[in-house]
């Protein structure tokens, strides 16, 4: 079902793709909001029998039944069971049985790379979550692709022979790590003629389907022409699979932190393949407190740390730290 076609123009208004999965009454409410507001929309939260809440860059706000923003939850439009049924049917393409695997992970990726997180009652089998039923909560995240964010920092990530260095991007959640990583992957995969940088083969492990936004295995985001994506694959396993099968020159993955991720990362580095990854955290000192990451830093292999914040809007590059010296070099303040 070609529900959310990525036509020309619609890419500029990512929220339009989302609207088509919402029931008419809710869609109408959202369409009455000013365009400037919709452009900053980040999430639409639907919880059964509770108010309709939309999240934008500066916080969240309820919507009342005439489509006005209201801070008083008592006035807000309350999501009905019927609304939920309609959204479930659109999200699952009328087939909950076909997305059991996705339900187990708690999210579904829509065409266009938007993610819908779901909650409900977990069905347990042999001590593990088998699927969800009685779905009663949606978090529809509007995914925006911002191209060009990585261009200013790419020069500082290259060595003098034009090879990409082992890089770790770190920031608190919501500062644009994933967006930056995606754009970086796109750049190194396509190549940047201005920097005399030829494109290289990139292996991307996209455990949470956020980087490439795959829909049925096909990337919906621009991640470059030389990028192979393993969608929904556990990071550690995925990195090994790519290493064995796809001969990447760079392996990229999102949000490392578990012991096995670090082990796999070490393996990749030892194989002579460059690693680009992200990690939650505000500073090197802070991530040093996490044992797995402390181990990674003690290996002294990561050559560049890019630190992001929201100080001047999402995706502000605060600092790029050179791994060998740990000295700081200010870029693009």
């Amino acid at each position: 079902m070609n529900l959310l076609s990525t036509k020309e123009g619609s890419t500029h208004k990512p929220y339009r793709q989302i609207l088509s999965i919402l029931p008419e009454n809710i869609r109408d409410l959202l369409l009455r909001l000013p365009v400037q507001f919709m452009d900053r929309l980040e999430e639409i939260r639907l919880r059964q029998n509770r108010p309709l809440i939309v999240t934008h860059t500066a916080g969240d706000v309820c919507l009342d039944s005439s489509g006005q923003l209201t801070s008083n939850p008592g006035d807000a439009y309350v999501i009905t069971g019927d609304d939920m049924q309609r959204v479930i049917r659109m999200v699952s393409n009328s087939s909950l049985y076909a997305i059991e695997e996705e339900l187990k992970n708690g999210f579904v990726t829509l065409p266009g790379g938007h993610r819908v997180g779901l909650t409900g009652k977990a069905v347990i089998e042999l001590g593990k979550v088998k699927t969800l039923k009685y779905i009663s909560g949606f978090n529809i995240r509007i995914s925006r692709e911002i191209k060009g964010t990585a261009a200013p920092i790419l020069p500082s990530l290259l060595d003098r022979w034009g090879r990409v260095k082992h890089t770790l991007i770190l920031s608190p959640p919501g500062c644009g790590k994933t967006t930056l990583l995606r754009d970086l992957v796109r750049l190194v995969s396509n190549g940047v003629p201005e920097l005399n940088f030829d494109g290289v083969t990139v292996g991307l492990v996209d455990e949470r389907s956020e980087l490439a936004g795959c829909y049925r295995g096909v990337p919906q985001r621009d991640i470059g022409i030389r990028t192979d994506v393993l969608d929904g694959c556990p990071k550690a396993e995925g990195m090994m699979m790519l290493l064995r099968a796809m001969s990447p020159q760079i392996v990229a993955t999102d949000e490392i932190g578990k012991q096995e991720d670090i082990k796999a990362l070490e393996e990749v580095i030892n194989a002579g393949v460059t690693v680009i990854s992200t990690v939650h955290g505000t500073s090197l000192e802070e991530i040093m407190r996490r044992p797995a990451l402390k181990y990674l830093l003690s290996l002294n292999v990561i050559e560049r740390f890019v630190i992001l914040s929201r100080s001047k809007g999402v995706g502000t590059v605060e600092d790029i730290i050179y791994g060998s010296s740990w000295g700081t070099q200010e870029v693009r303040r």
Partner: protein
Amino acid sequence: MIRIAGAVLVIACTGYLGMAKARKYALRPRELRNMQAALQILETEIIYGATPLPEAMEVVASRVDKNTAPLFYQAGQELESMTVCTVKEAWDQALNAFSSRTLLEDSDLRVLRQLGNCLGMSDSRDQAKHLHLAMEQLKIEAMNAAERAKTHVKLWNYLGFLTGLLLVTVFY
């Protein structure tokens, strides 16, 4: 002469009406069996293929008897369309259109309508249960229909002609 022609015409008409009625009784068991087969294909698509429902409907439509196919074809089309309706609404709409051109009776259609409540909206094990239930109910309907066909087909075949004959003898 005209009298004789009129008498023949009356007998032919009532005979034809009787046979048409008998035909309905004769064909209903077959339609019910076809519907069961269709649900069987749908189950296979859902359980083993994990095919999304709109696609599964079209597969069923392409593989079943031409009298049964329209229901699944239309349901598939409704689901494919961009409108944000529920599966139940799409299925009901298809059933309503289907009911006017099928020999299936209200009790049969009720079984199918009930199936629409849960189609697509649960995990595969649950889907299988509901589909089996519907097939089982249709099977019982088919058995009853076959039983009734045995007596009613003959009855209506004769009854038509005999009514004509009666009319003729009374008014001749």
